[in-house]
């Protein structure tokens, strides 16, 4: 494996983005477009008694109103992961905000007015709005255990027994949720910002009882994915059905307020952690049980404890999960879906334990390193967490820290706190296919599995192609997220780079071999385009497919059928994880107690860094999101009414630029020697993991207050 660092390159789509030229799904112009608006349920549970649409249909411009009568019965559930068919329109109401009708009109204004004029009455039923509601149903998930956590904790010199709370939080990318469906010439084409174009193709076909072979899905560029757009969303089949019934293209862009009830969200979770260490400062046992809010039929697992099992060399472990089933829309993935809340809780508990032992929080973590996967004893493909911690400590100036809480002050009298925490995320991979075509006319086209949503996957692929092949960079077209170009796989879980960068490297290798064979020893100067022209070949194509370690042809078949084809982090011969260490300074005002975060140092071990610029960007974004999760964001439920109350960008408080100080990012950069040919692991998720804990640990260092519920707000420090 070559280990030369990749050079810094500009983002491949930067010029388009700054000019506003990047086309998102809702920007695709289609002639004859109709506009749609959903009608949300105002009750939290029950059944539609009457649905009056006459007033709405009389609004000038309204073309049709779809109701539950316009949909086939739901399909049989399927067994493979990631393939649940979301409901379409139903008479039974499972949560407030559930769509009960769709108004389609010639203009957005008419659709909006029509939706306001649809009148429904409901037979209501009692509902559970939160985990603590009387009607919440408790359901235990299968625990994970190794060693003997009970015995280890009983023998520990020092233990902490603490509970942490992470609130419900909602994705709020600027790109609203949208679907455009076109039914023409016997084919259904769906334009949607999604992380899983082939998933939509298969699942929408199943819901509407049509052949997936006639469905094409295009996700040209996604404006913020992070799990919100990983599953097939609720509106997609509804809009597709409208387009098929009307024979005209239909577009829905949901208002911001509706997203809070239509989209997946991070569920409220509670983390009860008992953690013990021996006199030498070795962590010996952990008992970790997390519970979360869950919808009545949701499948997002409560397995929060899984990540921290591999963070340190703890040999005795019990991890359990619980669902509280209530009447909400299904919760789901939101950046570092389990690892962020888990490492917030766990890494705060580690800090509490280090303080109890009188140990430095950095040294304490370093002393608890592991070389093997504690779950199964397999070797780790690569692990540089200790280097992340020591390099981060040095960059941050950790040695100047005085450990006593409240002992450091800024010039203006603010309390200063320095906190640290680690993060971990599995290195995962999917099967991929790719086609690389280089033409004599100067163009290059690379089509492959996976999606671009700003994380920089095209830039990473481009780096490999441009490093390995002499081609015209300006005429390089990388096509992603398009089922007509390549079978698509869900792009999530930080597996994009691991999956597709080695595929690009393989395509480069094959292309070089093919060119060399064609030239048959002739010396032709210039780029590949000129070489092809010289030997009168209009173009040259190579097709490749690639599996992750341990995957077989069945994974490729699942990929081709739009099914889940993901492997890791436990591979046949090793376990692969990415790591990060975050160092945070907070300043807490002495009077009104505003919390500021002037600086952060984050050092990540994600294997080899393919695209330095977008990688730094990923980490900064992760830290910003962790700041939001720790100090700003919560979706609030009034249990008397159900649903989410603060459903706009004024009241769902995300960070603003003025909130964010300097974020200094560094990478270990050591290629992973075994995971794949390029030496990459994953970065997008681990970037966020642990940063919230570092912030809360810093607040403790500043104030002496252990705050165990997020978000931490000004009133908690008064």
């Amino acid at each position: 494996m070559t280990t030369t660092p990749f050079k810094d390159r500009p983002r491949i789509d930067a010029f388009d983005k700054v000019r506003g030229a990047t086309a998102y799904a809702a920007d695709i112009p289609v002639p004859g477009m109709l506009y749609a608006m959903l009608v949300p349920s105002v009750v939290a549970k029950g059944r539609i008694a009457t649905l009056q649409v006459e007033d709405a249909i009389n609004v000038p411009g309204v073309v049709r109103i779809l109701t539950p009568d316009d949909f086939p019965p739901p399909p049989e559930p399927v067994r493979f992961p990631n393939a649940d068919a979301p409901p379409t329109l139903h008479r039974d109401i499972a949560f407030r905000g559930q769509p009960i009708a769709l108004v389609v009109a010639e203009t957005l204004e008419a659709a909006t007015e029509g939706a306001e004029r649809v009148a429904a009455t409901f037979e209501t039923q009692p509902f559970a709005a939160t985990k603590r509601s009387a009607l919440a149903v408790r359901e235990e998930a299968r625990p994970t255990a190794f060693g003997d956590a009970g015995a280890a904790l009983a023998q520990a010199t020092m233990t902490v027994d603490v509970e942490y709370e992470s609130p419900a939080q909602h994705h709020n990318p600027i790109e609203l949720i949208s679907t455009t469906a076109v039914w023409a010439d016997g084919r259904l084409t769906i334009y949607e910002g999604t992380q899983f174009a082939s998933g939509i193709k298969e699942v929408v076909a199943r819901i509407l009882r049509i052949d997936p072979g006639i469905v094409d899905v295009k996700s040209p560029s996604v404006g913020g994915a992070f799990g919100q757009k990983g599953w097939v969303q609720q509106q997609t089949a509804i809009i597709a059905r409208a387009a098929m019934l009307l024979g005209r293209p239909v577009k829905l862009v949901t208002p911001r307020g509706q997203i809070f009830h239509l989209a997946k969200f991070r569920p409220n979770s509670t983390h009860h952690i008992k953690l013990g260490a021996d006199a030498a400062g070795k962590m010996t046992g952990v008992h970790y049980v997390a519970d979360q809010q869950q919808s009545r039929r949701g499948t997002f697992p409560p397995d929060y404890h899984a990540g921290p099992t591999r963070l340190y060399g703890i040999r005795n472990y019990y991890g359990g999960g619980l669902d509280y089933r209530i009447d909400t829309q299904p919760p789901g993935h939101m950046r570092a879906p389990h690892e962020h809340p888990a490492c917030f809780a766990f890494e705060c508990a580690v800090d509490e334990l280090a303080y109890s032992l009188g140990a430095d929080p950095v040294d304490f973590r370093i002393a608890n390193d592991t070389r093997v996967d504690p779950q199964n004893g397999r070797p780790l493909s690569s692990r540089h967490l200790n280097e992340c911690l020591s390099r981060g400590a040095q960059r941050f100036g950790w040695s100047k820290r005085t450990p006593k809480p409240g002992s450091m002050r800024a010039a203006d009298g603010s309390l200063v706190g320095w906190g640290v925490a680690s993060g971990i995320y599995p290195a995962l991979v999917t099967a991929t296919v790719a086609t690389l075509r280089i033409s004599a006319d100067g163009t290059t086209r690379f089509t492959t599995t996976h999606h671009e949503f700003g994380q920089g996957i095209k830039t990473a692929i481009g780096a490999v192609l441009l490093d390995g092949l002499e081609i015209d960079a300006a005429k390089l077209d990388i096509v992603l997220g398009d089922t007509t170009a390549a079978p698509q796989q869900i792009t999530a879980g930080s597996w994009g780079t691991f999956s597709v960068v080695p595929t690009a490297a393989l395509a480069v290798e094959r292309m070089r071999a093919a060119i060399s064979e064609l030239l048959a020893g002739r010396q032709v100067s210039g780029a590949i385009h000129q070489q092809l022209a010289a030997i009168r070949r209009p173009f040259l194509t190579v097709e490749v497919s690639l599996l992750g370690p341990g995957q077989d042809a069945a994974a490729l078949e699942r990929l081709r059928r739009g099914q889940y084809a993901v492997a890791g982090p436990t591979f046949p011969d090793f376990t692969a994880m990415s790591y990060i260490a975050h160092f945070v300074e907070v300043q807490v005002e002495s009077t009104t107690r505003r919390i500021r975060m002037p600086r952060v140092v984050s050092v990540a071990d994600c294997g080899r860094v393919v695209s330095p610029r977008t990688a730094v960007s990923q980490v900064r974004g992760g830290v910003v999101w962790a700041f939001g999760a720790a100090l700003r964001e919560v979706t609030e439920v009034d249990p008397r009414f159900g649903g989410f109350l603060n459903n706009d960008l004024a009241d769902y408080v995300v960070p603003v630029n003025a909130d964010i100080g300097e974020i200094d990012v560094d990478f270990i950069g050591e290629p992973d020697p075994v995971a794949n040919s390029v030496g990459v692991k994953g970065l997008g998720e681990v970037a966020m993991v642990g940063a919230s804990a570092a912030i809360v640990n810093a607040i403790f260092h500043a104030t002496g207050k252990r705050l165990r519920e997020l978000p931490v707000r000004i009133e908690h420090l008064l």
Partner: protein
Amino acid sequence: MRPFTYIRPATPQEAVGAFAEAGEGARFIAGGTTLYDLMKLTIERPAHLIDVTAVRGLDRIEMDGDRLRFGANAAMSAVAGDPTIGRDYPVLSEALWKAASQQLRNMATVGGNLLQRTRCMYFRNGGGGIYPCNKREPGSGCAAIGGLDRGQAVLGTSEACTAVSPGDWPVALVAMDASIEVLGPAGSRSLPVGDLYRLPGDTPHLEFTLGPGEMITAITVPKTPAGRLSTYHKIRDRESYAFALTSAAVALEMSGDRVEGARIALGGVATRPWRASEAEEVLIGHLLTPELALAAGQAAFRDARPGRHNSFKTELGARTITDALIIAAGRGRT
């Protein structure tokens, strides 16, 4: 969105005439930064919009004589960015700078800003009538009382409503004893800014004292040396682009370290822009110390009636006043 008529008169008299002619369901609109928002939420459903942004001469900033005069159509950003205001009346400038975003400040007018409606989440979640709200539907009840009331008022509340008056600019104006000029069907009149706002009482749907068809044409602020020793201190859930949890507009007249005159008004904590005369009285004639400043802050909240989640506002509000007093007094020691 419901259809509505739309006209753009060119003079104040035409605007007032057009309003009278339009009859039921007429609304003046200036920057549109509140009204359009509320129309999308189906809380406002005007049948006729009378756009006053084309009215000539209504955007002047004048400083002759013994008062400042801001035409109602002056953009928030224009007044905020005026160097004389920034130097001699930082309380006015800061109240505008710390509100909204640059884009909104470029659109919103200083007159329209006075009529901004509450951000109470239960009020704004109007569509579909899920949450009862006496402001939206008189007599339907108040979901905020006994609900998620972290953002609600602790001063000036009633059994019918605890919604916060959301503005920053009106708070600064109330501190500075400003007045508004109003033109209506019966001619023009002027009134103190403070008198524009009603307490909710048992009629929280009645928010302003303007009569039907009356339009704010200007804001006047008496000139005072206290303007120099002034500040608008705003504490919120993030560093910018958020409404106040607590805010204090403070202007002082000092003789050395002794307070000769004090004007204090509060935002984020009350159902209308709140003049805190109890706090002012604590200060007058005394040396300004951090202890006295805190005592003044606490006096302002003596009659506070917190709900379930907003009791922190009394302590935070008192400390906000304390800091504001120290900042304002510090401007005399250059």
